[in-house]
């Protein structure tokens, strides 16, 4: 069942690789791999089944992975969240006879009271149908609701503030908030005492958190400047080239600064590598295009970590994330050359195109005479020398080039062996590659 059925929730957009698109300033907080969302009281609302739940600073995003559709429940609409529990069936007989209800009673449920426009209150339950640390999730949820991050961002990014405003009406929220009495009051008290116990621990990390929040602010600033530059350059398209050039540089610089909400072990838990893999797939698309469809893994590692800022990943994590691409439908792939060099390339990347460029490079008069080195090729193709060498070796394998190893180094020449007539070695055709090479070689004597 796709998430489209639950049209009582605002839909959320999804990236090409199937990660939720976050709005400005929105940060991922935690993930649960498999949940259902069940309205508890109103049968008119369709439930959501088998979704990945992403908790962000702004929303609960229910992502139905097979159909790559998502629904977002704005945290602003959550009036109250009840701590997780396992449902005890109201009717003990029912649980005796119905196997399905007895199995569902094994699952943790987090009940949420939410306000729906115009002025309706509903109770829905997040049913956690997988093994996960529900208490940690709940803790994060409460933190996110308290932090009210959505109230800070609309001013910073009015353009992308829409998704937040969609379901939320803060004024109404307050109006229908229930008084703190009865069971929920006790629960809330419990919650607060639990939190004050955690306070001591958090104090210890305060300095670190302060640093992190500064880093986040920097990223937001970068994002804001980038947006501003983008709008400027589109309106003043006739400004002079030099200015455009510097703007482009600046944009590139800012673009490479930030992934605003990096996937971390902390937020994604068991889903870490899978989610990292998807985020990486989204991230490398643009740098790959600029690099001509292929990049060395080390280069990607550097770029990706620079973009992540404080949340660095290990090379092992990167490799794992890349190797998971085989299992999902993403437009990029990991490739290992015979020499062992690993690269990331787009699936549409064609070696033929690279071969054509190398061939034409090798046939220039200078290259005919002296051959080409990996660094020559790197310069012409605009890629790293290690990668250029792989391309040259590949072209050699194809029979386009052949090698010359001498004290001067390792160079490649256009392959003339097939052009030479073994029966008649002294005369040659008055045209073709061999002829071109001879005239260049003779001229240099």
């Amino acid at each position: 069942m796709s998430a489209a059925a639950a049209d009582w929730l605002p839909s959320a957009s999804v990236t090409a690789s199937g990660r939720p698109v976050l709005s400005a300033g929105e940060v991922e907080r935690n993930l649960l791999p498999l949940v259902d969302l069940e309205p508890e009281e109103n049968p008119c609302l369709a439930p959501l089944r088998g979704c990945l739940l992403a908790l962000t600073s702004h929303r609960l995003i229910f992502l139905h992975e097979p159909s790559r559709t998502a629904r977002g429940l704005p945290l602003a609409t959550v009036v109250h969240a009840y701590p997780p529990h396992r449902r005890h069936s109201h009717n003990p007989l029912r649980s005796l006879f119905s196997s399905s209800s007895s199995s569902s009673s094994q699952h943790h449920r987090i009940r949420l009271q939410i306000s729906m426009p115009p002025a309706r209150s509903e109770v829905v339950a997040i049913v956690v149908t997988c093994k996960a640390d529900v208490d940690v999730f709940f803790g994060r949820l409460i933190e996110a609701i308290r932090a009210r991050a959505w109230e800070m961002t609309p001013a910073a990014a009015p353009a992308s503030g829409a998704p937040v405003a969609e379901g939320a009406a803060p004024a109404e929220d307050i109006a229908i908030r229930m008084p703190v009495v009865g069971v929920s009051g006790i629960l809330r008290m419990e919650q607060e005492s639990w939190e004050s116990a955690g306070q001591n621990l958090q104090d210890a990390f305060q300095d670190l958190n302060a640093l992190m929040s500064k880093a986040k602010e920097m990223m937001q600033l970068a994002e804001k400047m980038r947006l501003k530059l983008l709008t400027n350059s589109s309106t003043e398209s006739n400004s002079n080239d030099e200015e455009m050039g510097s703007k482009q540089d600046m944009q590139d610089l800012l673009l490479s600064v930030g992934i605003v909400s990096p996937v971390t072990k902390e937020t994604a838990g068991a889903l870490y590598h899978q989610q990292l893999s998807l985020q990486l797939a989204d991230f490398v698309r643009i740098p790959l295009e600029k690099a001509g469809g292929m990049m060395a893994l080390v280069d990607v590692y550097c770029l990706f970590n620079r973009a992540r800022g404080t949340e660095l990943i290990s090379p092992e994590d990167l490799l794992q994330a890349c190797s998971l691409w085989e299992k999902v439908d993403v437009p990029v792939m990991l490739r290992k050359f015979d020499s062992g060099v690993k690269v990331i390339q787009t699936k549409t990347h064609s070696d033929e195109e690279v071969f054509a460029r190398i061939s034409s490079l090798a046939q220039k008069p200078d290259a005919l005479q002296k051959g080409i080195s990996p660094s020559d090729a790197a310069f012409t193709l605009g890629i790293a020398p290690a990668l250029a060498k792989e391309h040259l070796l590949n072209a050699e394998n194809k029979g386009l080039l052949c090698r010359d190893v001498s004290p001067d180094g390792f160079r490649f020449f256009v392959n003339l062996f097939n052009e030479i007539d073994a029966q008649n070695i002294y005369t040659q055709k008055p045209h073709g590659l061999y002829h071109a090479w001879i005239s260049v070689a003779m001229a240099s004597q």
Partner: protein
Amino acid sequence: MQRLGDFRLPPFFNYPPYFTLQPVRETREKQVQLWKDLILDYCRSQKIHTISLEEDFPLFSNPKIERSLSHEAKEVFLAALVSEGRAEWMDKGHKKCLILWLRIQDWANLILNFVKDNGLEVMTIEEIRSGIDTRGTELEGIDRGVLMRALRQLEQKGKAAIFKGTSADDEGVKFSV
């Protein structure tokens, strides 16, 4: 045109990759073919019968482009000749190689035609190798081992008889044309 003594070198002798053993199979096959032909042509024109891998061989380096064959490359090219019956290793260590720019069979025919054309019936071995009659022909300076094998082949066919003289270097052959 570049020359090595009075031998005319083909243009690709100045192509640097010609001197590097090519790792890709198809390219190497072509390279080996070109080397085999050139070695045979050169040896025939210079009447060279043996190539020693330990010593410098003019064909195996090109000072003009500062390239020369590695030991491995030399061995590969000569081994290719050996496998075609156009050369033989003279020792187990593959240090010396006998080049047969004519196969033994062809040498035998050449000798037979030579004695027929010149109406000769009896010759000593030394006469064939350095006598007046063979001067200026391909037989001049023929390797003694190669000559003896060609003559023995003729003997088996009943076209010649080798006889011993008074001393070891005084062997002769009687042809029955």
